[in-house]
């Protein structure tokens, strides 16, 4: 490194036309920041973050989803009929797709945030004038993008096992609505988990003891109607069940509960978690202390 590069006599480049020069003796002030640029940059960075390691963040979960389908689908296809007229494999595909959406949306916001907290580079997002809403929205939207990317991947690959039943999608709008809401809800939950956790260990506990059981027991692999009454009641207390059930309704126009009930439950859960996450961000809980 040469100190020559620092000579003060070096001619200063002309400032960009939009730079305000307040006159001699005063520092050059950056131009008025453009609205949305901060938010868009953070969203872009969050998407780029997982995209740069797409093998780990997209390809691997897609493979996991396909493996579930191969194992459970092949073993149980001839033995189980969850919905009348729907093969078990066809039944399983929406469940696995939704499970992948949920788990990956959660993984994205939670691991991104905790990595930034632990490595300390969260400071780069905290020093700029990003609003609480921008911060929240960028993390959640990136989680939605990752969740949907993995979901699409799982769906595209598993489609091959039961193409006719799945392509005859009965109500695509419901499919889209529940995929979006599911990714959003888990993105928000991931954000909360990332905020509350200070160690990878704590985050792993969230993932292993809350998200995994809740998604597994949400009727991904079975219709809750096949469960004993007690466990049916327990399942109905799990908001993830409504996501899977509503999503599946979009494919087969059959579900354990009405999609409108599912929609109401999911929207309520999303509103409650959003309020909680936003409040944490606004108060700087475990982020600005």
């Amino acid at each position, binding site marked *: *490194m*040469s*100190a020559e*590069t*620092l000579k*003060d006599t070096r001619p*200063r*480049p002309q400032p*960009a036309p939009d*730079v305000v020069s307040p006159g*001699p*003796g*005063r*520092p*050059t*002030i*950056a*131009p*008025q*920041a*453009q*609205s949305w*640029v*901060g938010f*868009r*940059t*953070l969203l*872009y*960075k969050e998407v*780029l*973050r997982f995209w*740069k*390691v797409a093998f780990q963040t997209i390809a691997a979960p897609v493979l996991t989803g396909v493996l579930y389908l191969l194992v459970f689908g092949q073993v149980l296809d001839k033995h189980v009929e969850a919905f009348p007229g729907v093969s078990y494999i066809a039944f399983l595909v929406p469940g696995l797709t939704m499970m992948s959406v949920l788990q990956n949306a959660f993984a994205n916001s939670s691991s991104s945030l905790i990595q*930034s907290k632990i*490595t*300390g*580079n969260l*400071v*780069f*997002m*905290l*020093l*700029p*004038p*990003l*609003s609480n809403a921008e911060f929240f929205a960028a993390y959640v939207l990136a989680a939605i993008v990752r969740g949907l990317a993995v979901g699409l991947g799982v769906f595209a690959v598993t489609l091959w096992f039961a193409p006719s039943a799945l392509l005859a999608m009965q109500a695509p709008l419901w499919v889209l609505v529940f995929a979006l809401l599911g990714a959003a809800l888990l993105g928000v939950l991931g954000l909360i988990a990332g905020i509350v956790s200070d160690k990878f260990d704590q985050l792993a506990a969230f993932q292993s003891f809350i998200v995994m059981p809740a998604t597994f027991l949400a009727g991904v692999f079975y219709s809750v109607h096949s469960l004993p009454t007690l466990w049916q009641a327990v399942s109905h207390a799990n908001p993830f069940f409504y996501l899977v059930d509503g999503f599946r309704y979009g494919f087969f126009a059959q579900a354990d509960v009405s999609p409108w009930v599912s929609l109401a439950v999911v929207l309520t859960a999303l509103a409650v978690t959003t309020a909680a996450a936003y409040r944490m961000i606004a108060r*700087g809980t475990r982020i*600005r*202390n």
Partner: protein
Amino acid sequence: MNPAAIETTNVVKRYPRTTALDGVSLRVEQGEFFGLLGPNGAGKTTLISIVAGLARATSGTACVLGHDVTADYRAARRALGVVPQELVFDPFFTVRETLRLQSGYFGLRDNDGWIDELLDNLALTAKAETNMRALSGGMKRRVLVAQALVHRPPVIVLDEPTAGVDVELRQTLWRFIRRLNREGHTIVLTTHYLEEAQELCSRIAMLKAGRVVALDSTRALLAGLEGVRMSFRLAGELPAALAGKLAERDGVRVALRLSGAEEVECALGELRMAGARIEDLEVGHADLEDVFLQLTSDRRTGESFLPSPASAGEGPGVRASGHPTRQTA
């Protein structure tokens, strides 16, 4: 009156078990090169964190260019560039990506002209497309400086920017920061290198245990330490007549605090009369380190006072040598 570059009013920060800041009021004027000194745990970084919005004060207010850091946080943060103490980086990105992202967070697009200038000034141009992981510690530190400057903040805070950094980089960095100061940027610096503060800062605040124990121009702080310090090796007892002048005794090494050349002569006379054999005699002026040690030594209570510590002579850690070796500029 122009708003202060940074103004804190009675800032208190309490954690469950400690009080990190205990009513800190400071005013840094625009265009100043201001030093914030204090021992580890004095509250320097906490104070910076509150000004930067990285931590919330328990009570009190902080403003950057007149913008309250919580009520008007967008304007306050836009006016401020902070180089954090920790060597943090995002391993997913290259140097240029890092700087572009940081510009974007501040709402700036097409900032490449300024980014190139920063890279050039910090001798990072050759590393622009290198991943952050592959950089040495000194390089990462320079990227942190560049990140703090992407939005051309009028107020720049550097928290221990030269900790663990080699001499060459230190010089490079200071030349650049001085230039920014000449161009009108306000600089606030925390450092453990007192020589740096003495050389660079026009005004200095010293923190101890969350309180401001001194706040004055660097010159006035040093002027508060009139007199000289004489140190030597002494095998036997110190003559009783000199006991009152003793600043420090560490084994055979004795340091006296004296008012001037006359007292040096007298002291030498006393020693000769007592038949004491002295060796390795050093006579020197006090420097900022003496002020620092006096004001922050544990023998002091945390009472706030403005400096006139010269006569006190109770700093236990006064150094045996009056002239510390300086890094040549």
